[in-house]
């Protein structure tokens, strides 16, 4: 079962093709890894999928529905939410209020939203920080806050943009477990990550981007053996 279909998506900034003719599908309930060197177009692809940029060409189908022309808020209400590479806490609001903002896209009742928010804070294990201002959290907890916030919107598909970036090994491990737990709930995930060990461990399938183009697609085992991928990461002389 396909939940997300990316059909020949291209995105041009002037003459630069940040994404060129990219197509792949994501299966319901799976974890899709998205890797590639810096500047490969991973975040641009996320922006095209979630409605921040209209793709220059091609289209994105979510559960069979075209997302063309839809703004991020509509996409979120349809059940697809993303996190940000650079975390974006709502600094002057408390942790629980941050998560409530996410929950409020499913309910109009503050009381209900608060319950939903506290539940998600327990999921990511920062419920003891509920009453703190978000700006006071250290980076590891900020990342968890982002996860709780998107979970509160009741998504069917989550897009994580380097959710483990800048974390220490223990914190990364916690987030890996979190992602695996989310998978158990039946939520599909697409994950951009630079930590190869982590991405190989959690992904069911992986897409590799390089200079805006899709270089390879396959299971983690296939990807590590793919000579094109090795070249892209390590250069020609290593072959």
């Amino acid at each position: 079962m396909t939940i997300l279909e990316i059909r020949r998506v291209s995105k041009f900034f002037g003459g630069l093709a940040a994404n060129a003719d990219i197509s792949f599908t994501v299966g319901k309930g799976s974890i899709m890894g998205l890797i590639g060197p810096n500047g490969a177009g991973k975040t641009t692809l996320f922006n095209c999928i979630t409605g921040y940029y209209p793709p220059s060409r091609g289209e994105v189908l979510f559960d069979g529905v075209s997302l063309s022309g839809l703004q991020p808020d509509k996409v979120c209400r349809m059940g697809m939410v993303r996190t940000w590479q650079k975390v974006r806490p709502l600094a002057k609001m408390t942790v629980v209020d941050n998560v409530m903002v996410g929950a409020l896209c499913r309910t109009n009742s503050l009381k209900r939203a608060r319950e939903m928010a506290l539940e998600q804070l327990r999921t990511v294990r920062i419920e003891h920080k509920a009453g703190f201002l978000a700006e006071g959290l250290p980076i590891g907890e900020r990342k968890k806050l982002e996860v709780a916030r998107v979970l509160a919107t009741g998504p069917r598909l989550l897009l994580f943009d380097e959710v483990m970036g800048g974390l220490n090994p223990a914190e990364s491990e916690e987030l890996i477990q979190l992602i695996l737990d989310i998978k158990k709930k039946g939520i599909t995930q697409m994950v951009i990550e630079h930590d190869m060990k982590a991405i190989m461990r959690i992904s069911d399938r992986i897409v590799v981007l390089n200079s805006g183009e899709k270089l390879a697609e396959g299971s983690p085992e296939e990807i590590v053996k793919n000579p094109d991928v090795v070249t892209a990461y390590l250069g020609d002389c290593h072959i």
Partner: protein
Amino acid sequence: MNVNRISANNNWSSPLRMVTGIAVLAFLFLFPRFVESPYALHIMILFFLSTIMGESWNILGGYAGQYSVGHAAYFGTGAYVTMMLMQFRQIPPWYGVWAGAAVVVLVALIIGSICFRLRGPYFVLASIAVAEILRLSAMNLKELSNGAEGILATEIPPLKIGGVIVTDFLSKVPFYYTGLAFALLTIIVTYFIQHSKLGYCFQAIREDQDAAHSLGINLSLYKNIALVISAMLTSLAGSFYAVYIGFIDPSTVLPLDVSVQIVLICIIGGIGTIYGPVIGSLLLVPLSEGLRSNMIAQAIFKSGMVSEESGMGIFLRENLSHAHALIYGILVVIVILFMPDGVLGFMKKMLARRAKS
């Protein structure tokens, strides 16, 4: 260690809070019964007016984070519609106020559709530009607005219900209660916004537009809601001002000064809080009146710090009343430097610090 913790018990247990609230309300309701001085009433009315303006701006600027420096547009439009209806069409102001608010909603939606395409400083500039367009229009559309001559209210008809005169507007007392009612209205509206989904959406937009957008918040919808509420309440202030003073012209109700004044009330009091604009008004109204009427200079002479006959004394007497813009400016600089969260935020921080030690 945890300075960032929001303490639920900041020395204000809620029964105490309620008693204080009721006491303040009772004081405000009974004030005109005990104080007959028209000047004291005048100061109180200016305080209410300033509170209405501050609270209104606060909804858009403080909660939704859209720093409009063009709120004179709504203030002036409300004032003009009410005055034009009263003087040219003999429609009493208690209807005119609502007509003004309705027109302002339309104006706000047009302005919103233009300005909300822009973000940050560009939005600020656009909001200033639109207000200036309205000022110049009022100046030049002479058939409609009397141009620079302005409109003078010759007579306010008494308010009658079923043929019985409820009140006439000869003394300041009816204005006092109208101002108080409008001020309470804006505070109540703000309270409900803060404790509803609207408040959460507004604040999320203020903190990070893109994050808010990705969490399912329709940016243009919520920004326009904030603008419409804010503009409507500002127009009440404008209409109230016009009828109370009895004269308006483009340079008193539509200039940039008014827009800046509105913003300052909030910045000094504390942005994005229910009582910030009240505190701001409490500081700014007496200050500007004291300077304007030379009361502060008199107080300095009385205290004996400076003799009235000395060179310094003459200088103060002659110039202090003109210096209120300067002193305002210095005050703003001090607040921005030392109390970035406004006076209210500063007081809260001090209370929290004292509670800890």
